[in-house]
């Protein structure tokens, strides 16, 4: 799902200044925190924490993920609202509002609601509320950002006082993950929705859910305050209040952390990592973030309709060096669109990696790229432009490196930074043949990204019947391992045709102050009720 940081062009000039500031700072602060223990090694004092202050790198306008569905919105809502199911630390589906569920046939699911499920206003969760929330989530005008994930959703009915039956239009192996808060479903009360005419998640209506925290204050583009509640079925969290400030400017965020104003800072920018690591009184932890970065081709724009051209461009990308130098190792060279953690349902980390590494990939080989280009329709080279979102400066650096390599092939690549919203509009607009795909998956479902990039209505304008058939077969596969086999086949087909050229799987950096520990820190921590994972660390 998209990330929505709000970049400003003048920030380009800021690093020089901040580096100067940091140089002065390291001169007078008390040394670095090398060897700071990771959360896993910190002791839990068992004490309650009054307030944990969190800095977000984006500015939120609305708290309802159906209205604004950036990754930051998911992180905030995860403490407040739940789906029928949840995703645990290992990426597995676990009960949330549904205590159990059963698939009665290929397209029918029956959920039994938890008896102790309550909204934050004390009202019990009814089957009707769940049905209402699901219908709202699937309506593109009420919930533009979640509706598209529920494309196989057919109907939901309250089949008993504590039972909900959901039907899909066709077999869909990923359907259960869309009924989690990490997918598309956050259950709210119909009465609450109607009271505000559907305008939920605003500063007036706030948000009503069933999670461990309720929203007590929300000022768009400023902050949101979450207070713990005693209505959550999972118990009372140790942190009484979470204050989340939106600080889009990365330099301001760093200074705020230096001042000790932040206990947790999400999305620490890679290029600022050295400064954040210097901060006394805190540590930076790195974790896979289920994000995919790759080269994107629009096949409706010549010369990218020619597979040889696509392959030549993909072979001119030195992925190893970029991951090593640009990402400073905070990422992994990607062979495939799906990432190793997304295979969790069937394979563990190393097994998954081995399996994915068997898929052919375009290794960096300029000689081969030259050959390919010579055989293509554009043997003499061509000119094109690649745009990247200003929120992803690492993409810009990668694009510059690619431009250097392409120059040797006679291809002139102009690199252009644009605001994130403008970049979004270039994807598959029929005018930009070459671009980046930068996608944050929240559910970690193995088909989430590949079915978007290669499936029905894909932005690349790929019309490949074999790909569609594989996606449909994978959707109908009941056995996780069999489904992954089909998806691996899809990845192979993608590699052979160079529809999408994977670059790397991302890792995110998160800053924690020494006062705060997080019980389990995995790619899925912040899309679950993470307030309940925080503890007062022994210092």
């Amino acid at each position, binding site marked *: *799902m*998209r990330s929505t940081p*709000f970049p*400003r062009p*003048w920030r380009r*000039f*800021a690093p020089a*200044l*901040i580096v100067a*500031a940091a140089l002065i700072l390291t001169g007078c602060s008390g040394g670095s925190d090398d060897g700071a223990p990771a959360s896993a090694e910190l002791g839990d004092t068992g004490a309650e924490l009054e307030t944990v202050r969190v800095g977000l790198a984006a*500015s939120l*306008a*609305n708290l309802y993920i159906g209205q*604004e*569905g*950036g990754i930051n919105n998911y992180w905030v809502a995860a403490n407040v609202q739940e789906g029928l199911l949840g995703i645990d630390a290992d990426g597995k589906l676990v009960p949330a509002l549904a205590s159990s569920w059963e698939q009665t046939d290929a397209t029918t699911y029956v959920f039994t609601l938890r008896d102790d499920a309550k909204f934050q206003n004390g009202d019990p969760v009814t089957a009707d509320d769940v049905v209402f929330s699901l219908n709202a989530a699937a309506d*593109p*005008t009420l919930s*533009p*950002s979640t*509706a*598209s*994930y529920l*494309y196989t959703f057919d109907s939901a009915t309250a089949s008993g006082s504590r039972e909900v039956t959901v039907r899909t239009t066709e077999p869909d192996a990923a359907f259960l993950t869309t009924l989690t808060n990490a997918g598309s479903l956050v259950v709210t009360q119909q009465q609450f929705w109607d009271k505000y005419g559907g*305008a939920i*998640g*605003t*500063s*007036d209506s706030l948000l009503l859910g069933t999670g461990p925290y309720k929203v007590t204050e929300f*000022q*768009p*583009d*400023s902050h949101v305050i979450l207070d713990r509640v005693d209505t959550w079925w999972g118990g009372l969290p140790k942190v009484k209040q979470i204050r989340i*400030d939106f*600080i*889009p*400017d990365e*330099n*301001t965020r760093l*200074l*705020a952390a*230096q*001042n000790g*104003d932040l206990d947790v800072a999400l999305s620490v920018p890679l290029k600022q990592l050295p400064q954040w690591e210097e901060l006394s009184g805190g540590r930076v932890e790195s974790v896979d973030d289920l994000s995919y970065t790759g080269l994107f081709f629009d096949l409706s724009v010549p010369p990218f309709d020619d597979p040889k051209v696509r392959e030549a461009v993909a072979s001119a990308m030195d992925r190893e060096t970029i991951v090593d130098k640009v990402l400073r190792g905070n990422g992994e060279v990607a062979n495939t669109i799906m990432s190793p953690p997304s295979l969790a349902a069937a394979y563990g980390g190393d097994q998954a990696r081995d399996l994915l590494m068997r898929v052919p990939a375009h290794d960096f080989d300029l000689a081969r790229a030259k050959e390919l280009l010579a055989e293509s329709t554009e043997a003499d080279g061509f000119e094109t432009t690649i745009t990247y979102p200003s929120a992803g400066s690492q993409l810009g650096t990668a694009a510059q490196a690619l431009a250097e390599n392409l120059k040797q092939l006679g291809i002139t690549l102009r690199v252009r930074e*644009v605001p*994130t*919203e*403008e970049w*979004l509009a*270039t*994807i598959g*607009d029929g005018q930009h043949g070459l671009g980046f*795909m*930068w996608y944050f998956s929240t559910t970690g479902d193995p088909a989430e990204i590949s*079915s*978007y990039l290669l*499936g*029905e*209505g*894909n932005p690349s304008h790929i019309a490949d019947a074999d790909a569609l058939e594989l996606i449909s077969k994978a959707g109908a596969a009941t056995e996780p391992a069999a489904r992954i086999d089909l998806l691996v086949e899809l990845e192979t087909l993608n590699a052979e045709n160079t529809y999408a050229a994977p670059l790397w799987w991302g890792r995110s950096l998160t800053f924690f102050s020494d006062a705060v520990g997080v019980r389990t820190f995995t790619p899925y921590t912040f899309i679950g009720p993470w307030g309940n994972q925080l503890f007062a660390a022994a210092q």
Partner: protein
Amino acid sequence: MIVVRLFGVLAILLVISFLTFSLVYLAPGDLVKNLLGNRPASPEAVAAIRAQYHLDDPFLLRYLDWLGSAIRGDFGQSIRLQQPVSTVIGDRLPNTLALVALAFLIALATAIPLGILSAAREGRFSDSLASLLSLIGLSAPSFAIALLLLYVFATLLPIFPAYGAGSGGFDTLWHLVLPAVALAAGIGAILMRLTRAALLRELQSDATTFARARGLREADVQVAALRAAAIPIVTSAGLVLTFIVGGTIIVESVFALPGLGSLLQQAVQFKDLPVVQALTLLIAAVIAVITILIDLSYLVLDPRVRAKGLNR
């Protein structure tokens, strides 16, 4: 006179509303993509959203729709925030008003005395020092000044908070000090240079030479010169006030202040037309009112203008 001016202002606002509408319409970006995010979208979902926001209506029809509602006082709903535009602007107006007022006061309180001092001691050390200060203020971009202020007064000497708007009242004012100083730096520098130039011109005028020749005390001469320089100073102060409104975009973003500047920036990027339209018109109207007030102030400041006005 005033009535004619007001009609002129309305005409200008109408033109501005059309231009802004066209620019947002033509600017790169896609509202549907902004709403849907980077994810699969079925043609039905895209069609439903396009219909919801009338994106397939002809351009002129969309503008006239907007204009019709706006004339009735209905500026619509923010697409990004899903709240009425009046609420959205009302929520952020106090922060920006306080920020602009504080910045303007700081600029006036520092720049005008410095400009006078500088003119009175032309060529001496204090003049050079003031000129140097104004040169720094003029040439340093406001985001750089903002970051420098943050570093010095929020981190090295932790006197002021680093970001945010505080919890209201004095706390908010305290939070606004650094942003206001950052905003005042550039405009204060302009104001100082203009004050200095206006006063110097008066001090070198025949009237001043004559006053000195008559044997008036130097202090009286300077007061008379200052009074004569008041019109250009007030005019430039008014112009500078209109600059501040634009400067808030950068300063509010750096200090994570929820105000009108950051609202405008995000609304433009999101293509949130109702907000962009309402805000642009609000800013244009404020600027128009400021210029009218400046003109009116001439009546007070200059007896000649007053006499001319009475003779009509």
